């Protein structure tokens, strides 16, 4: 049985009490421990910096050429915090409640409450670091509202909050690198986890410049490696985002939780063709002022698609502002899963727009009339520019075309309240873990979670683990486990390099993406998922027999890098399908057509599925074992989510 280690006691006191109950490591002993941090995004950089400040020795790894480039940087809209600076009724409890509800009651109460509790500290911390948040004329911090909430609690830095927060964490990290407390390894990819006596004690990495396979030892390993959205090939993730570190950990005994929970973000630029390498997201904040619509009739949509009429030719009464119509109280600001699903519904109904018909409008005409073009430019200028660069259409003059795209994965490595995985000494932070967002994440909450885990949770919980080790001995670098794991990594690389078939790795990745999007995307059925499982298995076979991988290990080898990542996606894809099949209910981003209300909303089955699915690896080409962590709701009542 999975033990989440949630402390006893009232919700509001759990974290304070737990902080007191945890063991501490004396300052002089902290420098005897080494902690490995994989990934340098918000979670990784903040954790590495905070741990180094405490006195631990830290090694960080990232595949990019600098820690500053982690994909947290692309987050646009903002970061939530229960500061109640706007005096609009916000509180820690309300943020907790919104997040639990937004996640469709599939998250752990205690974790979410802690997240809401430390959210305010994050803003303090970032401001102290010099993060240039948006401000009011009086010099105090400004807020905006975001999807799934009726208060304004989102702090932002124009349209690049993620970048500014990451640069803040990166600056804290740099400070520790300068002090010699952090050793940073860039252009390094983690390829495996090293376990000694069941505990995580190191990682095997590949230096992506020299190809050198290196073993690094540490007393604890923190996976801060982000999500696995690139399993869909097309997503808003960066090109390099991958599941390899988490997947290697899974194969070494860390359970993987809720892999089917993927978030499809409603406001992305639609696909234009087969050549497309990624999708571009535009901040959810656009829905503050943009109105989503499609024509009321299929005939009109058809004319639009053929270019016979322009959007401006469609009269007000012929437009269907479907989110405002269906959800009058939240309107265009319904949570992401709801907005995405409704867009898909319109397209499936033949009322989509754009050449492909796979898009809906996001219209700023009313906002421009109300506020003036300059005010709209001040709020969203960079997003409008980005849209213009990509589409060659001017959104000040005609409505944007948007369509949902894979954006975030709520599922991830299973962790307990201390963020420890099922492998002792191995932790997962940020998007890499499964913990706080349930089946759907609210906007502006990913940044909050990454920084909460890194700045304010892990510095306490790692200490507890290390203090309980009972000794301060360095990890034995010569332990055979290192050599053993290294040789396994090397033989896998050799196996990949021998592949000399006819399909490129990208070909196979694209096929996998099509399968995932078709059968495990916005709408899922038992039939489709079963079919997908077979298709993925076949594709995996084809990969290992017919893929083409070029070059040698001891050079910068793009082909090899991709192949290793896609090989892992091909395994993960199947687990996602398994999980989606198992979860015979709809919740949040997981929508099973078999389980919907009469109005077509996601219908949960609380009697049978109020649990976290945690999958245990049982061997290659063998079925994973499902473990369940029952979700206990002591504070909120489970209701059908309504944003009407």
């Amino acid at each position: 049985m999975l033990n989440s280690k949630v402390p006893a006691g009232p919700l509001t006191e759990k974290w304070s009490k737990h902080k007191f109950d945890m063991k501490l490591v004396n300052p002089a002993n902290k420098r005897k421990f080494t902690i490995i941090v994989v990934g340098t995004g918000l979670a990784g950089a903040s954790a590495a910096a905070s741990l180094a400040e405490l006195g631990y020795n830290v090694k960080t790894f990232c595949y990019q050429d600098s820690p500053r480039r982690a994909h947290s940087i692309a987050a646009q809209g903002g970061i939530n915090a229960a500061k109640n600076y706007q005096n609009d009724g916000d509180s820690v409890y309300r943020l907790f409640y919104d997040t639990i509800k937004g996640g469709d009651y599939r998250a752990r109460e205690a974790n979410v409450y802690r997240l809401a509790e430390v959210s305010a500290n994050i803003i303090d911390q970032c401001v102290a670091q010099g993060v240039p948040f948006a401000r009011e004329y009086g010099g105090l911090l400004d807020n905006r509202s975001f999807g799934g909430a009726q208060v304004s609690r989102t702090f932002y830095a124009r349209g690049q909050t993620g970048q500014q927060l990451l640069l803040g964490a990166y600056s804290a990290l740099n400070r520790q690198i300068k002090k010699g407390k952090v050793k940073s390894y860039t252009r390094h990819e983690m390829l495996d986890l090293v376990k000694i006596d069941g505990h995580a004690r190191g990682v095997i990495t590949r230096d992506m410049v020299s190809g050198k396979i290196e073993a690094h030892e540490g007393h604890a390993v923190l996976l801060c490696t982000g999500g696995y959205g690139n399993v869909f090939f097309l997503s808003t993730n960066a090109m390099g985002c991958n599941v390899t570190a988490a997947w290697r950990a899974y194969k070494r005994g860390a359970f993987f939780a809720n892999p089917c929970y993927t978030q499809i973000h409603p406001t992305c630029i639609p696909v234009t063709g087969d050549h497309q390498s990624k999708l571009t997201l535009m901040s959810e904040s656009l829905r503050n002022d943009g109105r989503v619509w499609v024509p009321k009739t299929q005939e009109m949509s058809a004319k639009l698609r053929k270019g016979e009429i322009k959007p401006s030719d469609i009269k007000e009464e012929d437009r269907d502002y479907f989110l405002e119509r269906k959800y009058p109280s939240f309107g265009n600001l319904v949570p992401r899963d709801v907005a995405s699903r409704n867009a898909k519904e319109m397209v499936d109904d033949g009322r989509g727009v754009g050449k492909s018909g796979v898009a809906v409008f996001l219209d700023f005409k009313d906002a421009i009339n109300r506020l003036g073009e300059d005010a709209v430019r001040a709020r969203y200028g960079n997003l409008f520019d980005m849209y213009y660069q990509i589409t060659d259409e001017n959104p000040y003059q005609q409505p944007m075309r948007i369509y949902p795209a894979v954006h975030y994965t709520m599922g991830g490595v299973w962790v307990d309240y201390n963020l420890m995985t099922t492998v002792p000494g191995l932790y997962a932070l940020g998007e890499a873990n499964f913990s706080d967002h349930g089946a759907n994440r609210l906007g502006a909450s990913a940044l909050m979670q990454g920084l909460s885990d890194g700045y304010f949770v892990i510095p306490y919980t790692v200490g507890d683990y290390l203090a309980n080790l009972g000794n301060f001995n360095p990890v034995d670098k010569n332990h055979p486990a290192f050599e053993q794991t290294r040789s396994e990594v090397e033989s896998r690389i050799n196996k990949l390099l021998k592949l000399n078939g006819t399909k490129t790795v990208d070909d196979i990745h694209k096929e996998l993406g099509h399968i995932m999007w078709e059968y495990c995307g916005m709408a899922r059925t038992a039939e489709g998922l079963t079919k997908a499982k077979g298709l993925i298995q076949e594709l995996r076979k084809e990969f290992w027999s017919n893929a083409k991988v070029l070059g040698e290990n001891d050079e910068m080898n793009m082909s090899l890098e991709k192949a290793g990542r896609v090989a892992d996606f091909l395994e993960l894809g199947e687990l996602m399908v398994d999980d989606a099949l198992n979860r015979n209910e709809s919740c949040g981003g997981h929508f099973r057509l078999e389980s919907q209300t009469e109005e077509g909303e996601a219908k949960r089955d609380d009697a049978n599925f109020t649990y976290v699915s945690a999958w245990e690896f049982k061997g290659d080409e063998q079925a994973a074992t499902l473990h369940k962590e029952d979700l206990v709701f002591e504070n909120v009542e489970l209701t059908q989510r309504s944003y009407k």
Partner: protein
Amino acid sequence: MAQHMNLTLKVWRQKNDKSKGQFVTVQANDIADDMSFLEMLDIVNEDLTRKGEDPIYFDHDCREGICGMCSLVINGRPHGPKYGITTCQLHMRSFHNGQTIVIEPWRAAAFPVLKDLAVDRTAFDRIQQAGGYVNVNTGGIPDANAIPVPKRVADEAFESATCIGCGACVAACKNASAMLFVSAKISQFALLPQGQTERYERAQAMVDQMDAEGFGSCTNTGACEAECPKGIKLSNIARMNREYFSAKFFREEDVHQ
């Protein structure tokens, strides 16, 4: 419908940091004008891979203009022919059928070529490590609104903070100077109240590291500002100079340590 075009690419190929590189001519056929420049390179690389030839290595990641990983000097312009965008945001509609495109890596002694079009920009990290931060630990921080910052100041600090560290300023500068990059970070903290305590030490430490990395000196041509995808202004360099000279000539406490 999308227009299609055939292009001739002259691409810098270099096996590793020790070998000598050269230009290699590659054809890019049937390229749609709504592709991004990097998607065009993806297609070229897929073709090369199918033929069993080593694909062209280039740095890229987010492909939405914010991570700063992509680079490339395209027909003599960092990030290509358009202003205010990164290479990943450049679309093929900026080119025409039959055109020859010369693609080179950033060229600077401080940015050695690692392979083909990818260069080592860790010099930028080392400059940041020299002082691009406020010395605060996690925790024990006063409430965020305890430090009011006038909106004008906050906005200007933000403008400086938008630098993505791509290195286009160095690539564009005829002297391979990194002063726009360095000054942007110095400016951000010189403007904000949070940065005041270490303001003058920071300027000196970052400039020293910049010099040690072997970047050239600014001759105020303005090329960096023109080519910066984020529009970082030249006035940041003036501010950096001011900070540095103030530290050197008017701040005794910082000079005699």
